[in-house]
């Protein structure tokens, strides 16, 4: 897969935004500024970036509790995201959702989701809307390796096959479901094969390789947009941090993580390949990195100072108000 320079730049910037957003968010969380739970996407950036590369605002994604990367890939504004993880009045969900529920419907981002396995049926519903209206878009469910075992996910896959819906099941196999390894929790050991057995094409790719993910997604898009029904893609990319911030990770070794950062950094791998196949240079990447760091620091600082919700906001938005 050969991509032109603007496309390469955009892909890198997207992944870099994810990386810096989460590492900066982590710092703010550890400083006690963010409530609840936050889940780092570091190490998995190429998945969301590759899956969403060719999607538009009219395509849908349904996300997981580890949703920041998905939001960024789908075009959510990081300034608005920062406000939401700080639970501010002007956040994407007015502070009512927080990190685990960021949603931006105008971008086709149907929400991070704190119920594991919740994304798949919702994405199938959005695919049903697309088919019913005769549109040509697709709907993607992001699903963790752990979530892949939920009944809701199996039911969603079967329904999508039965109804021949333009749904794409994007599995993010990051090796762990909380503190349990995929080798234990996934009985057959093969998420892609299991999805395939439902009767849809299924791909398995290295999720640290942006190009591999994007290529598999291009095939999936052709299939789904061509009215041939759903597709699944399993992307393998171990996470760099704990399940949530604060997880002491007694179930892993420091060596495993160091090795991942050394040899399977999706951003480093991307830079290498991009420099080999385009005229982008080290200096170009350094400049992009600096601009992104500056933008995210500004977004976080602004969010920190932004107004809190008003106490009475507690009571609004339960139902539509008719006057």
């Amino acid at each position, binding site marked *: 897969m050969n991509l032109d320079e603007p496309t390469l730049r955009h892909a890198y910037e997207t992944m870099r935004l994810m990386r810096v957003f989460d590492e900066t968010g982590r710092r703010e969380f550890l400083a006690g500024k963010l409530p609840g739970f936050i889940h780092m996407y570091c190490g998995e950036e190429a998945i969301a970036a590759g899956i969403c590369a060719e999607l538009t605002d009219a395509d849908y994604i349904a996300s997981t509790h580890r949703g920041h990367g998905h939001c960024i890939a789908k075009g959510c504004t990081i300034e608005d995201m920062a406000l939401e993880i700080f639970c501010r009045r002007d956040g994407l969900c007015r502070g009512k959702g927080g990190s685990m*529920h960021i949603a931006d419907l105008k971008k086709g981002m149907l929400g991070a989701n704190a119920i594991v396995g919740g994304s798949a049926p919702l994405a199938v519903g959005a695919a049903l809307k697309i088919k019913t209206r005769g549109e040509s878009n697709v709907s993607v469910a992001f699903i963790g390796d752990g979530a892949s075992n939920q009944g809701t996910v199996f039911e969603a896959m079967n329904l999508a096959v039965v109804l021949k819906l333009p749904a794409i099941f994007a599995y993010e196999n990051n090796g762990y479901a909380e503190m349990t*390894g995929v080798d234990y929790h996934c009985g057959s050991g093969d998420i892609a094969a299991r999805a395939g057995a439902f009767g849809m094409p299924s791909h398995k790719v290295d999720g640290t390789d942006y190009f591999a993910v994007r290529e598999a997604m291009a095939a999936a898009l052709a299939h789904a947009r061509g009215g041939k029904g759903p597709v699944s893609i399993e992307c393998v990319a171990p996470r760099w941090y704990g399940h949530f911030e604060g997880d002491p990770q007694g*179930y892993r070794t420091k060596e495993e993580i160091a090795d991942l950062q050394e040899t399977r950094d999706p951003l480093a791998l991307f830079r290498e390949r991009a420099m080999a196949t385009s005229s982008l240079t080290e200096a170009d990447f350094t400049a992009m990195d600096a601009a992104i760091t500056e933008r995210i620091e500004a977004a976080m600082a602004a969010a920190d100072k932004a107004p809190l919700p008003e106490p009475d906001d507690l009571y609004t938005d339960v139902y539509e108000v008719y006057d």
Partner: protein
Amino acid sequence: MAKMTMREAINQAMRLEMARDPDVILIGEDVAGGRGCPVDDGEAAGGVMGVTAGLYSEFGAARVIDTPITESAIMGAAAGAALTGLRPIAELMFADFFGVCFDQLYNQAAKFRYMFGGQHGAPMVVRTMVGAGMGAGPQHSQAIYPIFAHIPGLKVVLPSGAYDAKGLLIQAIRDNDPVMFCEHKMLYGEEEEVPEESYQLPLGKARVVREGGDVTVVALGRMVQLAAEAAATLEKDSGLSVAVIDPRTISPLDVDTILDSVEETGRVVVVDEATPICSMASEVASMIVSDGFSSLRAPIRKVTAPHTPVPASPTLEAGYPPTAAKIREAIEAVYNYR
């Protein structure tokens, strides 16, 4: 007597029962942790809040069972194992997740005894976390237990501290019917004096937290502490004598203890963190109106969460559950009513 957190007390109850009865097993997500991981010493998690720590090392993989994320199968497997002779403790990490598995509980486990004409029930305990206070947002913070109490065949326990939690859990494990054991996440770190040895507290028997002749406060779960605090302040500041009753189990509900107190006071405040519609607060109030009407001297006041989901924002969440101040206000209002 030694002080113990509610986390330790619950852990000890499970430990004692598992040592006593080989039919007691523990099944759930990350109850040990580390399975299938580079480091698998069985102590990686001990539950996401550390409540099941050490049980895997003591009782082994055959009885402390880590599962995939698969609540429907966990609850169904516990129900099936209970129907055929085991006494499973099944962990539903956050009560909010009941939505993905409730059929196995309310249509299956809860109904076996009745629909099978009394042949056998499902002697299982579902341990689950409830309540707001961590900024964990709409899908991890609910006090959803009134829904459980609505189901005939389920018993529902709501401990307000470490001492009760230990005795009630031991009793729940020995009970021959399914018990939903709802642990408030903000109470895990709270300490009380708790005996080391095993003891049981009956299901369906309230605790009179404090006696009082002017107003009766019925408070549930974490609200018990706040109600006791409000009562103590009022006694000090205005000489009011306020009874606080902790039902401890909301199904079965100890109607007699509540009515006895109402007979004396005639004035009632019910406090719960759950949403107010079709709730335990409305259940307790309606029970008193039906069965204690002649004692009443003022309308019953309910202090509950608003009828909204739980917001993530700490600013908003702070306004969600009842506070000691709101409880105090309600007590004064019923006291000063005519």
